[in-house]
């Protein structure tokens, strides 16, 4: 007998992350670095798949739009992470799948394309996989970078390929201590740079078991007066201990806000709770 239980995930947005026009509700501001939301769930899921509704798509297949830069990515020079020249374009003749793959031409080592920042906590298990190929003599790295609260590099998961044929590779590991953010870096790992290609970039994150099922949903309509009472819901979020000692109580708050005194700042934040009934 299979016991069916719906899955839930909760996303909490800092006020500045929400599109002021709200044409699409809870859509982050166009071009903003998505480092101002926090997400917990009752199951694992891809950061890429099915995130379009929340406006957080990483666009790992590069099929979302045909314009440049690719949705969700900017080159390292524009972001101030590298010096020299890096050009992003689409490969449409020898793409891995679909219509487009990402082509990167850079004149410096580690030049490439960077995704927005994603909140993460130490111990959280990530998997990154990507299809890669290169021009002769260089190495393509699809790195998931672990960054601390100051957005400084700690370490990374790094599937690579140095051949001229498409190769799909993946690496899985837990985020190290002090991790506050992750970021995808599609880069050319060769002194003096070169040309590298990427497609089918996927990041899977283990968010379990931070979230409990929703409880106490309220809200009513009086059919006589047509009066609507405000809907309400209660959630419980587990502050999972990942290391001995430390302030277990405030881990969830600190992961979102960077300090332990952020409770008041969380009040009024917009929240989206999603449900999955496919058991996936």
């Amino acid at each position, binding site marked *: 007998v299979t016991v069916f239980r719906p899955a839930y995930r909760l996303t909490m947005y800092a006020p500045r992350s929400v599109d002021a026009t709200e044409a*699409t509700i809870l859509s982050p501001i166009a071009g903003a670095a998505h480092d101002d939301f926090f997400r917990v769930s009752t199951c*694992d*899921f891809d950061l890429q798949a099915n995130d379009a509704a929340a406006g957080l798509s990483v666009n790992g297949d590069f099929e979302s739009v045909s314009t440049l830069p690719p949705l969700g990515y900017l080159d390292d020079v524009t972001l101030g992470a590298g010096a020299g020249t890096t050009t992003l374009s689409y490969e449409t003749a020898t793409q891995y799948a679909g219509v487009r793959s990402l082509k990167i031409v850079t004149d410096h080592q580690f030049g490439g394309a960077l995704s927005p920042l994603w909140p993460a906590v130490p111990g959280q298990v990530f998997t990154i996989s990507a299809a890669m190929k290169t021009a002769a003599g260089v190495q393509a790295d699809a790195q998931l970078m672990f960054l601390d609260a100051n957005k400084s590099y700690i370490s990374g998961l790094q599937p690579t390929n140095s051949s001229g044929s498409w190769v799909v590779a993946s690496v899985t590991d837990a985020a190290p201590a002090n991790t506050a953010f992750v970021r995808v870096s599609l880069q050319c790992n060769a002194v003096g740079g070169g040309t590298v290609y990427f497609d089918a970039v996927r990041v899977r994150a283990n968010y379990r078991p931070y979230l409990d099922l929703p409880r106490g949903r309220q809200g009513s309509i009086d059919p*006589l007066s*047509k009066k609507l009472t*405000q809907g*309400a819901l*209660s*959630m419980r979020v587990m502050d999972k201990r990942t290391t001995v000692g430390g302030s277990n109580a405030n881990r969830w708050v600190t992961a979102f806000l960077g300090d332990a005194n952020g409770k008041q700042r969380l009040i009024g934040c917009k929240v989206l709770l999603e449900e999955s*009934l496919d058991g996936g």
Partner: protein
Amino acid sequence: VTWSSFFTGRSFDLGLTPDRIWMELQLRDLSDDLKRKVFVGQPHTSITYASMPSLVPLGVQKAWGNFTVVGVVGGVVHRLSTTKARLDFSAGTDFIKRVIPSNVRALMNETWQVILTSGGNTGIFPTRPVKAPTGKVSWHDNQPIDYFLSFEIDELPVGSPGYLAMPADLAVVQFYVTRDLPPTADSPLLIGDVHPVQLLADLIDGKFSLLKSDGSARAMAPRANSPGWSTGDPWKPLIDDTSFGYFRGAIPESARANDWIEKALCQIYQLAYRLNGAGQVELIDLRRSASTSSGGTITDTHLAELAPTWKVSRESAMTGAEVTYYVDEAVSLESVKTLPDPTVPFPPGGVRTTKAGPS
């Protein structure tokens, strides 16, 4: 995993449970957003069925019921600077079109808007009526009544909604004067015949609330598609349903959107609304079907998923109704000429609303 929106709201409270392992997060939905004020002045430019009455000339600038549009008056611009001018009435403009009854005088401490058309272009120019020079005219028993001689108008900053460059000196223009402030009993917002669901949609879309600095509307909440509908306006199937009839009214004051919608639209037209999981306003048609057919067999295809834990409740059964109703009476502008007292009021829109029941 395929995700669908379950609840959209704001965090209301966050606290650590005594076991120091769980954090309790209280969420509230976005219905607070529907408490925004509506009827705060002139509606969004896309609204063709509602307007504030014209103060000069007195009457309506958009048809309302049997009321005909009063039209504009002619004027001549006398520039005082590049951005300021004196706007004279064209020679021979009838005094009755610029008379100042007591209702209008009561509004003269406000800033009014001159809606001016010059060379085929129309724009807004603020004016302070209290500074406008006036003359006196007498039609009845030598009782003099004030009338406007001219207005001093200012050009809006470039880029403002309604901006129009100050016309050239001695330019011949057409204009009328109105307010862009919350309606009053004397200067109500006149909503012409409109489908109630269309009005409800425009209210939710923010077209009757404070507009953004560029003149565009800021929606209070997105609207959810009607069942089985996915293209065009989300509520088109209901808007196309002519059995609802029409709404027409004179709005004497601004109100909170949710209160006004529930009383003036939902109660009358048997509508209700709620916020769905995505934070969208979902409209519910509470009218009972007129169909008495009971044929056919109920199968699984007739099943519809109920929204979890949404409930309906009622205090008591309704056995009767006591209705307060009002009569809107058209007052002829010509009647000003026969008023024995110069201070007798004349409503700017020409609408006199009288409570007619219950006795």
